[in-house]
């Protein structure tokens, strides 16, 4: 075998190994989409913090207005936040084996609206960093931007759009949840690609690589979460 071929073979094996590794049912791989502490270069870490803070501030302002009128709602929001955390720690079945980390942001943004969800979602992320060591503090801005801002807003937009155009609630719920998940994954991949552009091909090539690796777990998860959310919605209506 030529040296080059050998190298190529090793690489393919490596990629296959990692892919297999990520699909194996292990609770840790589930949180693969939380960018770890210290992973992003300093410029990007700061950039995503700056991008995230306005949404957070708007969300807090909105919550402040709501809770000033009815202080009990504060308790409700707190309990709902705990519920969201538990949801994100729940193992959900996926086609590739069961795995945790449904984001629950789709359901949440339909129920509470995307802005309140951006506050609850980012607090959930902070708890995940502090109580589970998933994600990190310097990368909280980036993670919150993708999971607590982009995901909920995309899910909510899709929900509104589908409700207006088709009126089919189940369909809208399915896509709201699945798109919230997918969009989170795409934004995270993009964040990584922008921070680490490939030598040849730049951001686009890098995006393909990061997106490709995480697609293995995230796309089936998005579909599962969509299905799950529809079921939950049905139960909630019948309850």
């Amino acid at each position, binding site marked *: 075998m030529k040296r080059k071929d050998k190298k190529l073979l090793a690489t393919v094996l490596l990629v296959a190994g990692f892919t297999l590794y990520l699909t194996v049912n292990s609770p840790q791989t589930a949180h693969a989409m939380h960018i770890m502490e210290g992973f992003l270069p300093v410029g990007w870490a700061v950039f995503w913090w700056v991008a995230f803070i306005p949404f957070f501030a708007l969300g807090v302002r909105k919550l402040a207005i709501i809770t000033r009128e009815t202080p009990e709602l504060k308790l409700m929001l707190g309990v709902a936040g705990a519920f969201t955390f538990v949801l994100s720690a729940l193992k959900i079945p996926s086609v590739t084996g069961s795995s945790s980390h449904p984001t629950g942001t789709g359901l949440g943004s339909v129920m509470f609206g995307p802005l309140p969800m951006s506050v609850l979602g980012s607090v959930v992320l902070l708890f995940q960093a502090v109580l589970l060591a998933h994600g990190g503090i310097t990368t909280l801005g980036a993670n919150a931007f993708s999971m607590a801002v982009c995901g909920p807003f995309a899910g909510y937009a899709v929900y509104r759009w589908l409700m207006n155009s088709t009126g089919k609630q189940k369909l809208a719920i399915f896509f709201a949840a699945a798109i919230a998940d997918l969009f989170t994954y795409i934004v995270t991949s993009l964040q990584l690609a922008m921070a680490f552009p490939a030598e040849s091909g730049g951001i686009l090539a890098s995006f393909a690589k990061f997106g490709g690796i995480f697609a293995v777990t995230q796309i089936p998860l998005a579909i599962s979460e969509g299905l799950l959310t529809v079921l*939950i919605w*049905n139960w909630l209506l019948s309850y």
Partner: protein
Amino acid sequence: MIRTIDTLSYRNALSSISPLWKCGFAAVAIALAYASHPPVQLLLTGWMLLWTIGYARIPLKYYAALFGSALLFFAASLPALAIELREGSLAWSDSGLHTAVQVLFRATACLSAMLFVILTTPMAQLFQVLRKIGIPSLVIELMLIMYRFLFLLLETAREMTMAQRARGGHSGFKRKLRDTAMLVTRLFAATMQRYHGLARGLTARGFTDDIRLAPYEGASLSRPRRAEICIGLPLLAAVEIWLRWEGFVWPL
């Protein structure tokens, strides 16, 4: 894992030490890790290990498990960093590998500083720190309620799952999906019950519109440890400056 971390944070040798000192120390360490080169980052990691395992006496097995699972993200991203797509075939990229190694050293140093904080500082004290750095009180109140009910709901979810499994549930993809959906719905109902109960309970205790936090308390750091920080950090910064002066190049 969540219970383990939570328990350790309350029962380690440094748990009663001023959270502001601990968080400040870790914050400067992270900043230094971002500004420095691998040798200094390595020293930082070691130093944080000394504090977490040596001084705070966090059991090594939990620490290793946490460290390892956090590094999984790095392992997963490694192929994307280090492999190039060139003319339809895959190949190692030297500059990619170089970046990967750099990221690894930085991430390890930052991670060890973060683990130091989360393993040695009880949540209640972190709330105090959040308040000191100006997080809106509404957010802290929400966090307070969340933290209080998080474990309760996790426990409820765990018991419900066990009850379902005891009755033959959770077999096969379709059933798992259905059972999970039922679980979430029941959990939601339980959550709303908790909310109603809490609203009553707190009203009975005079809740009006704010949950007022206890004032800040915290034993200060012992003199030698404080000295260690105050000398150690500038020393590491000096090493970094010297490295840059010498034109340090990482051999990889």
